[in-house]
């Protein structure tokens, strides 16, 4: 009895907490089978889905009803030990119910080919972005050098799209191509509302494309099991209005990367929607701040984006050693030798983590060779130095 | 009560005799051989894929292969297959001592094959660091010639699996040799020898495919 009570109490608590009032469940919404159609190709995909659905429903109801009718009409009455009628086969019937379903099935195949072609081949491409999957987050790089990085949501409490960080800002109404790869294991880039998905495979490039129908925020979920935090590396694609997109394009890459890239979505959107003067002021101010931002502050931003999922700053152990008191420490390595943590050691550990692994830790860190500039590495070192 | 070989062969006291005959035994062995073909087929597929991806590297890797030893081993196996066929014939025609002799020769040649591989060929490769994880192997990877490294991974895996099958075959044939010496096989009971022969011929055939892929590729 206690368990049932607990279930109900927890359920009620959750409802209150997340304002999912039971009577507001909107039952029809619960039984909606597909999310909102937010991309150009979604209608083609959904058409196939619904055709298959209704054909299947008819077939299902037909067969089940027939079966129920037969079971009841031809049930053996009490005490009746007689066998049924001696009927063994009927070739005409067999051929009929082989040919008709075959025809139906191939009709579905050809219909789905159309949707597939639309999914694979965009008519044109307005923007190409490179996205790399990693354990456990995404990295996007624009042609002009803008970079966005999302990470892992590790909190134990429930998550919702409000917790997701943006991985892409794209123009609504224009075709965008994403070139995918992975730096470690296979991930998969899935945007349910766009109906697109493709695996991010290490050692090769794969592609997908989409066109957002209207501005909005669209969740991205990793859909190929990639280890411990597979379920907690979501992201958002933010489709912008034309004028917002123009604003976005106008910000130069280095300013964007060190400031706006790590801004929460809503704050950044607010910036993009400012009147011209205000906008220019904000960007100018950020440029100045970036130029005069102390090295260690820049390092801190980078730390939050790239290192915090595995290294803490408070001394506690996660996947890798904590950065607290790291600089200047005498570290014992896996091979038994000892090394003093200085600038060179930190730099090497960032670029080639498996070169000198600390004893008692797994070789789990991905190399950042080719992904961080010398400036960024120096910023990180400066930040680590501040953690006494 | 000590049950004799013949009693055990024809079913035990608590189990009825089931006789599928020589044709049944052969059918069973052919089905098993099909599974072996698919097992090696998987590896041949992997070879084919990487060969097409790294043609130049595969050819360059050949530099490290000892063709002479490979050729000797090929002769050894083909000869052993001949003796195996003779052993089957001798059993079918009740030439008991000849059959035992031929079986013994097959065992000897099988052991020779393994001896040559494990005392000359493989140690030489290990000494050069060509095994997965070895010095030369890792150098291939670092230089960007991953195809060469894959070639040697394939070499060890495929010839290794093949050698395992030779070893198992030698073991079974050795036991059969002992049985043959004690008069177990005859024209009325030659099935086991014939199906063992089928297995041994498969092992030979697989080597005949492996040989050009690793030793003759240039």
């Amino acid at each position, binding site marked *: 009895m206690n368990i049932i009570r607990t279930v109900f109490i927890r359920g009620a608590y959750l409802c209150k907490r997340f304002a999912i009032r039971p009577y507001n469940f909107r039952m029809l919404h619960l039984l909606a089978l597909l999310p909102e159609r937010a991309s150009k190709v979604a209608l083609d995909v959904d058409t*196939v889905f619904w055709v298959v659905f209704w054909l299947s429903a008819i077939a299902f109801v037909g067969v089940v009803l027939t079966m129920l009718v037969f079971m009841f009409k031809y049930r053996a009455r009490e005490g009746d030990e007689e066998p049924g009628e001696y*009927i063994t086969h009927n070739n005409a019937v067999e051929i009929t119910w082989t040919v008709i379903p075959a025809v139906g099935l191939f009709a579905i195949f050809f219909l789905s080919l159309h949707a597939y072609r639309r999914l694979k081949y965009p008519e044109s491409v307005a923007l190409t972005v490179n996205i790399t999957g990693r354990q456990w987050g995404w990295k996007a790089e624009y042609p002009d050098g803008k970079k966005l990085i999302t990470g892992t949501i590790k909190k134990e*409490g429930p998550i919702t799209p409000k917790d997701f960080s943006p991985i892409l800002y794209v123009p609504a109404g224009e075709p965008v191509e994403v070139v995918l790869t992975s730096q470690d294991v296979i991930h998969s880039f899935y945007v349910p509302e766009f109906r697109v998905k493709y695996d991010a495979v290490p050692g090769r490039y794969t592609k997908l494309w989409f066109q957002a129908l209207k501005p909005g925020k669209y969740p991205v979920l990793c859909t190929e099991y990639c280890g411990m935090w597979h379920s907690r590396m979501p992201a958002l694609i933010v489709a912008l209005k034309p004028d917002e997109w123009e604003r976005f394009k106008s910000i130069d890459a280095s300013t964007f990367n060190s400031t706006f890239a790590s801004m929460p979505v809503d704050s950044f959107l607010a910036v993009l929607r400012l009147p011209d003067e205000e906008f220019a002021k904000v960007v100018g101010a950020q440029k100045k701040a970036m130029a005069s931002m102390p090295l260690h502050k820049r390092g801190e931003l980078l730390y939050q984006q790239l290192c915090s999922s595995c290294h803490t700053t408070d001394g506690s152990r996660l996947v890798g050693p904590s950065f607290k008191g790291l600089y200047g420490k005498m570290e014992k390595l896996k091979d038994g030798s000892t090394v003093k943590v200085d600038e060179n050691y930190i730099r090497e550990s960032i670029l080639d983590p498996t070169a000198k692994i600390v004893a008692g830790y797994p070789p789990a860190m991905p190399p950042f060779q080719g992904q961080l500039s010398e400036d960024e590495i120096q910023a990180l070192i400066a930040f680590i130095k501040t953690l006494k | 009560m000590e049950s004799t070989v013949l009693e055990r062969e024809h079913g035990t006291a608590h189990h009825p005799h089931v006789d599928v005959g020589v044709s049944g035994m052969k059918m069973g062995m052919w089905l098993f051989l099909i599974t072996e073909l698919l097992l090696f087929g998987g590896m041949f597929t992997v070879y084919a894929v990487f060969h097409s*991806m790294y043609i130049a590297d595969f050819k360059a890797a050949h530099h490290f292969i000892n063709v002479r030893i490979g050729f000797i081993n090929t002769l050894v196996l083909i000869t052993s297959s001949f003796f195996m066929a003779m052993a089957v014939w001798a059993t079918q025609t009740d030439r008991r001592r000849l059959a035992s002799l031929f079986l013994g020769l097959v065992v000897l040649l099988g052991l020779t094959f393994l001896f040559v591989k494990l005392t000359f060929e493989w140690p030489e490769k290990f000494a050069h660091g060509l095994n997965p994880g070895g010095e030369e192997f890792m150098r291939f990877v670092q230089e960007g010639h991953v195809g060469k490294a894959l070639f040697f991974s394939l070499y060890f895996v495929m010839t290794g699996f093949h050698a395992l099958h030779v070893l198992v075959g030698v073991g079974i044939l050795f036991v059969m040799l002992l049985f043959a010496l004690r008069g177990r096989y005859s024209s009325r009971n030659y099935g086991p020898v014939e199906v063992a022969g089928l297995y041994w011929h498969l092992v030979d055939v697989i080597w005949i495919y492996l040989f050009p892929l690793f030793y003759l590729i240039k």
Partner: protein
Amino acid sequence: MIESKKVEREEARPYETYLDKKGLMSWLFTLDHKRIGLMYLTISMLFFLVGGLFALIFRSELMFPGKQFLSPYAHNVLFTLHGAILIFMVIIPMIPAGFGNFFLPIMVGAKDVAFPRLNLMSVWLFAIGGILLLLSLLFGPIDTGWTFYTPYSASKGLNVFIVSLAVFILGMSSILTGLNFIVTTHKLRAKGMTWGRLPLFVWALYATSLVQIIATPVLGITLLLLGLENLFHIGFFNPKLGGDPVLFQHLFWFYSHPAVYLMILPAFGVVSEVVSIHSRKHIFGYWFIAASSLAIAFIGFLVWGHHMFTAGMSPTADVLFSFLTFFVAVPTAVKIFNWVATMYRGKVRFTTPMLYIFAFLFIFLVGGLTGLFLASVGTDIHLHDTYFVVAHFHFTMVGAAVFAIFAAFFHWLPKMFGRMYNERWAKVGWLLNFVGFNLTFIPQFIMGSMGMPRRYWDYPVEFWPYHFTSTIGAFTIATGVLISVAVILHAILKGKKAPDNPWGGMSLEWQIPSPPPTENFLEEPVVEHGPYDFGKEEGH
């Protein structure tokens, strides 16, 4: 008391049944296919409960959003082991190696399988493989998913190697069984037992055995290569060493797709038997059903790429695999129509086995039809790796295969043990299983098409109602399963004595005493009619 019972039994029966000889050694070293079949059933049943328990644990975690009590690693381990255990130790072997071993020789009129000693080796390998699987937990439980995709699974270490070895050994067991069945069917049929008089269960086992012979070795070598990769870094599937992760997927699915037909074809065989006997009517379309088993086995080898539509194959390959996948739906549909037609003008009895057949047809229809959404490339891209796929394969593998397993148990239990089960409680178990099953997996279809990915330890809160309902369903199934297992155990130990032919079947197993004599037949069987000739003589 036991003494007098034994005397009474021997007086009543002048022959030895296969259960009479006692002692552990007589079981461990038996050459009797019936005992071997029972050992398979027992081992499988134990692993069924273990795999099911794992599901209950992670479904409890998933009942509410956010962390409840499992760490992400523990959750990932549990779904990996749930899949590996249930697929390799339960669904694949239970019907063919369990019921097949017991009944195939009897159904063809033989005293045993073609190679009884190989059969004993099969079950030993089966037990060893199962033990190795469990032993691997000692080296760090694997969390790779039962599909072992590389490179994630290629850099784990000894635990993956041990699991690879375990699955390889289980594969050997599977191959030997298939080999035995094929030779038995060809060589040991009794006088008068033509191919056209074989029960359809035998045809199903034959088709299954062909798949076992051809598909299993490929999985064996693939996993062995994966194991070697973990130990020696040979690099075939590791891009850093020049290898290709997608190559692993091709090799893996080349077996694992036919494997699903390994799981379903024997179940189809059970359905043919039960639907005919419990409707007391000749099966409709005997040759079409037999041929469709072979067709499914064959086509099943051509469609593996439909697991990889988002993996990196060329569009040509995508389209080809999609096209071929639609083909396999045709013989499957034909079977369903034939089974339903069998009930037409029959005398249907609402026994527990028949209820499981009804449930099977209902559930397999859903499973098969939802496969169409996945066969169409366009929709598959949206649905791949979501809970829609999870629901689809649970409908086909659990709803169909497991329900067929229960049907087989209740249908053949009287024959295997000479005892009857309690109909009322068996039906209670059936109801809980059927309702619970739908409650568990229908919400999964919905949340899948709404975008809920699979193998997720936690999910956005919006998916909560579906997960909640699904977990309630899981506990319902658990109750149903426990009740059903209890009914079966009670029947075996204390059930009322059953007549030799409680259902009035016409295949050979129903013409011999229950439980069967050690040598199956008291006199040499001569077959003069087919196994489904109900109503033939009377000219109905």
